[in-house]
């Protein structure tokens, strides 16, 4: 038996060690990709054959509700009255297909396969090979995502169930996929950044003991995120939602022997659970109201909620407002908005590629995705939208002010992320979901670039993260320097770069908004644009300019990162520059392709801004951005003494900001500690220990004592109890029978 096992093990190991398997894997993936392409090209002969026959076609037992009726199926329909600005783009009736092309299944399931493979065999493969399968899988997913994008651009959509997950009474939940414009955009963001981060990690995680574990978790994350964005119902969304939470937990706590890392992972999970609490209730309420959890019938009937009210916990709410706000709870948690923002900065305990992928570019934007996806619900409640806007605006300012003074390079970028996510929520809150998603798209590239650049710096600095010990790194890290510069310019909103277009779109939309919250958000947004430029360049100058302030030991080790890290940086830099070009507004002579592309899903606010006003707004935001950069240049390059003096003068404010407004401490003192104390001091000792135990044990004990006194019988106690309980029981019995 044992010999047999050993032989088999050896065979597997040898096979894995020899390069053959890699060749096979690549060939297999290419074949799969080819199959996908064939399916996508719509060749019916091949398509039918490759889709896997009846399994995929036939097992969706209950078709999409309302299926077959094109009118109901096209998302865009109920936006008809909202949208259609300018008539630059003629609205096409979109075809919704109810079959699952193979390539669409490959997108999430290849990373899943890669996760399973790598977690099982990665250790045997060792550092030399463990990354190949994950990289190949995610790259193939990327190719398939491109096919999906092409499919959508051709005017096709897919909405199809794979199998029924739960059926219980009228509850029918399936695993199913929806491919539309919004999904396609998210697919591109997730797979492209994930691919680059995978490649980057080969260099960054080099020499780490958990190398294979890292790659398997990255794949798990990619799978979860792709499930999140491709689902066609709320349960699959929730599945992805929680699964990205799990991957995030695992990756934040990747170096689990560090207490701070383990704490941070746990904190992220639990804080998110607070948001999920509302989210889950929202989902339940949706089911209660609509009798289904599929997007399609829910969204097409959403308008029926208008004017209804719902009573929960004795309070009466406007129905759409309640549903929207419950869902928004989830978004607040996942996207780290006030008051649930506390986990994201701590999440920086994870390896830097993780921060780039999960905690900047993809997972944290899931909240924005949720709001945009559920826009037919949010759109029904001005109050809910105002809440989204105000939460966004407040978070935006709050996080930006903290970022002004932090010295940990990753924390600055983390707070910057919180602030930028808030911009996206402002966009969604004023009804410009397209603008919010646009910022999500451009932000993904420049923020991933910032983080990976930081990673490159940290790598060079032998794991030093404090800018106090950096400076003058420009000449040691030229590629990192130039790419980081582009990213910083992009986030600061310098014209022509990606961040400029998306941020200005949001600011213009919020300015044009008729609600007070929108105007408020515009004012805050413009102010924060200045702060953003300032803290980004503060970080940039402190890191790359001036004199090196680290130890001699660190200086000796300074080096540019290897090719597999710098190439992803360059590719991301291209994204940070060019990703905005798909949405150049009409005021600048562009085609505003972005908003037209997304319009069928998310609509377009019916606002009118003259080109002149748009120009003025742009000039203003560019102006404050440039001012921020100039201020940072003066304070951190020309006169480095100034910041210290300012900090000393306003020491109270400085400490307040440096300690992040003491929110963590507040939560610990008001929520964490009291709960644990109730457990320890009240429940264990008093309730369980004295009251319940006392009463329950007291009764037989007193019987025992009395009987002992009366009869002086000192036999076993169990006997006593039994005798008395039995007689008691019989008394009760007689009483009951007599009645």
């Amino acid at each position, binding site marked *: 038996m044992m010999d047999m096992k050993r032989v088999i093990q050896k065979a597997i190991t040898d096979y894995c060690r020899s390069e053959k398997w890699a060749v096979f894997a690549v060939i297999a993936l290419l074949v799969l990709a080819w199959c996908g392409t064939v399916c996508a090209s719509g060749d019916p002969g091949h398509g039918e054959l490759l889709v896997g026959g009846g399994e995929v076609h036939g097992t969706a037992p209950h078709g999409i509700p309302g299926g077959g009726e094109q009118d109901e199926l096209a998302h865009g329909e109920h936006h008809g009255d909202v949208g259609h600005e300018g008539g630059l783009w003629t609205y096409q009736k979109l075809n919704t297909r109810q079959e699952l092309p193979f390539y669409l299944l490959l997108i999430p399931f290849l990373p899943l396969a890669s996760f399973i493979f790598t977690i099982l065999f990665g250790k045997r493969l060792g550092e030399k090979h463990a990354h190949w399968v994950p990289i190949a899988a995610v790259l193939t997913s990327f190719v398939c995502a491109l096919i999906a994008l092409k499919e959508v651009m051709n005017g096709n959509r897919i909405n199809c169930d794979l199998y029924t997950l739960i059926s219980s*009474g009228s509850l029918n939940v399936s695993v199913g996929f929806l491919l539309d414009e919004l999904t396609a955009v998210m697919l591109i963001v997730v797979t492209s950044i994930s691919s680059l981060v995978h490649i980057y990690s080969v260099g960054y995680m080099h020499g780490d003991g958990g190398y294979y574990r890292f790659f398997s978790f990255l794949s798990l994350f990619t799978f979860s995120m792709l499930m999140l964005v491709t689902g066609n119902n709320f349960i699959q969304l929730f599945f992805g939602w929680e699964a990205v939470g799990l991957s995030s937990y695992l990756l934040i706590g990747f170096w*689990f022997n560090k207490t701070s890392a383990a704490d941070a992972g746990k904190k992220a999970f639990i804080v998110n659970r607070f948001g999920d609490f509302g989210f*889950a209730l929202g989902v339940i309420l949706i089911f209660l109201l609509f009798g289904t959890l599929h997007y399609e019938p829910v969204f097409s009937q959403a308008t029926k909620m208008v004017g209804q009210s719902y009573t929960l916990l004795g309070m009466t709410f406007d129905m759409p407002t309640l549903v929207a706000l419950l869902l928004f709870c989830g978004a607040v948690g996942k996207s780290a908005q006030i008051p649930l923002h506390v986990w994201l900065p701590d999440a920086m305990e994870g390896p830097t590629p993780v921060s780039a992928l999960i905690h900047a570019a993809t997972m944290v934007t899931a909240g924005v995705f949720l709001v945009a996806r559920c826009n037919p619900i949010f759109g029904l409640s001005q109050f809910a939208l105002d809440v989204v806007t105000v939460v966004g605006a407040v978070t935006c300012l709050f996080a930006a002010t903290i970022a002004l003074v932090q010295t940990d390079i990753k924390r600055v970028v983390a707070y910057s992320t919180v602030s930028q996510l808030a911009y996206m929520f402002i966009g969604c809150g004023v009804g410009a979901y397209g603008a919010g998603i646009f910022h999500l798209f451009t932000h993904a590239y420049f923020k991933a670039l910032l983080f990976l650049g930081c990673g490159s710096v940290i790598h060079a600095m032998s794991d030093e993260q404090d800018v106090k010990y950096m400076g003058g790194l420009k000449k040691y890290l030229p590629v990192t320097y130039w790419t980081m510069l582009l990213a910083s310019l992009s986030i600061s909103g310098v014209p022509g770069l990606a961040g400029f277009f998306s941020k200005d779109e949001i600011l213009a939309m919020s300015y044009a908004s008729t609600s007070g919250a929108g105007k408020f958000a515009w004012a805050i947004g413009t102010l924060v644009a200045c702060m953003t430029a300032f803290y980004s360049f503060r970080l940039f100058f402190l890191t790359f300019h001036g004199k090196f302030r680290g130890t001699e030991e660190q200086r000796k080790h300074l080096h540019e990162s290897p090719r597999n890290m710098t190439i992803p940086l360059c590719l991301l830099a291209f994204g940070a520059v060019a990703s905005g070009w798909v949405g150049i507004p009409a005021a600048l002579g562009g085609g505003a392709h972005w908003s037209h592309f997304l319009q069928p899903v998310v609509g377009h606010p019916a606002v009118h801004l003259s080109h002149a006003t748009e120009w003025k707004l742009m000039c203003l935001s560019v102006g404050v951005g440039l001012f921020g950069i100039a201020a940072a240049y003066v304070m951190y390059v020309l006169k480095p003494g100034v910041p210290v003096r300012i900090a000393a003068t306003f020491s109270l404010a400085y400490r307040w900001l440096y300690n992040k407004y003491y929110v963590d401490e507040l939560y610990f003192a008001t929520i964490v500690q009291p*709960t644990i104390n109730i457990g320890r001091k009240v429940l264990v000792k008093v309730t369980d220990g004295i009251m319940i135990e006392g009463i329950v044990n007291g009764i037989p004990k007193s019987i025992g004592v009395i009987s002992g006194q009366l009869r002086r019988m000192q036999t076993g106690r169990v006997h006593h109890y*039994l005798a008395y309980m039995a007689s008691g029981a019989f008394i009760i019995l007689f009483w009951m029978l007599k009645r």
Partner: protein
Amino acid sequence: MDFPLLSILIFFPVLGGLLLLPISKEKAGVIRGVALLISGIEMLIALPLWFNFDKTTHLMQFVERKSWIPAWNVEYYLGVDGISVLFVLLSTLVTVLCVLVSWTAIETKVKEFFVSLLVLEGAMIGVFCALDFFLFYILWEAMLIPMFLIIGVWGGPNRVYAAVKFFLYTLVGSLLMLVGIITLYFKGGHTFDILALASQSYPLKMQMVLFWAFFAAFAVKVPMWPVHTWLPDAHTEAPAAGSVVLAAILIKMGAYGFLRFSMPICPDAAKAMMVPMIVLSLIGIVYGAVICLAQTDLKRLIAYSSVSHMGYVTLGIFAMNTQSMEGGILQMINHGIVTGALFLSIGIIYERTHTRVIADYGGMASHMPIMAALFLLFTMAAVGLPGTNGFIGEFMILLGGFVARSWAGVVAATGVIIGAGYMLWLYQRVFFNPVNEKVVGLPDLNNRELATLLPMVALILWVGLYPNAMLSYMHVSVAHLLEQVTGNPVGTGDAVGSLAALVGQAGEVISAGGLH
């Protein structure tokens, strides 16, 4: 069905246990092997229950009916329906795993241990199959004895206290149940036939008395707050196998009792007591979860988490709609799988470290990575991560609870937050954090231990990704039960309506605001 499958399932392990007796106690290896063989064969014998079960009828299946004591109309009456069949199957699987986990952990009186375990298995299966009250009561009490021995003989240092406490709590409850049974016998036409008794209707007052008499037995068993305090002691002191059987099967019998007896026999009382029962469940959920945060003992923590999880089960049962009840039954199975797996894991770890104090652990993931990975999956299933079985049950119960009383859904959902808190904190303190020197050099799982845990892993993912495999067994039986309880025809027990329908009857569905 002519083939007496259920009788064989009940008596095969008992006889198998007796078969162990003549083996010399020096041959511990043989005893273990035979015990494993018997429990394994038992599991195979049970398979027809899975494959030949007719999911389209609520009638009892695999029925065996013989007159036993004609003078009192006592029958030997067995049968399973969609509610009980899965528990029979789960019992057979859990026993196999218990044999495996006790392989080296039980060193003294090996023979007696396995005899107890096998007899216990027979009695447990009997409880789930019995359709005659007299038979049921005998098996219910018979089950206590081997469990009492397992805790009292092979338990930890404080085992005698825990065993006696377990015994007394359960016995007090079951004596009241006996009173209820005898009352029912005289008022219900001198029969112990459970189905016949359930098909009659009794005056509300009598239903109330019966309901509370049954409640005493079942609530202790579940255990519901505030009669839960025997559970932490029993779990903590019991050997691994004892904890597993206790968590996976024994405490399910309380909830099973509600489903099989309380609700069909006293439907009006059950409906009248709906809100108090929901409130007790909610207290259990939150109380159990908060008290977990204060635990310093591994097994005690998991034991209290059972109080919280079983709160979900009773919430699901007493919310009385299709989703909640199916969710409740599924959650009973889930809890058996997940908590069973957690206790198996803790047993495996305890065998290496001989300490249950959480502070004695730390950084184990570096030394036992496979254990860490599996334990993580169990943890995630316990906190209800989608993709694991825990989510399906919890979601359906929350949904059904919300439908019944919206505040119940809201309060129960807070348990999900605290649940993540204590489980992840536990996981961190055991597997993450700097390495505690006490865990340095511990070997990772061996093949036997892996074989003990992998079935649970498979079940967690299977139910998590394809819960219909289990739910499909319940549909008809649950619909029938709901019809018995609510008096509405099949299909309308499902309180979920469309928006339009809800708007019409808004007052009715959402009137119950405010917490009691």
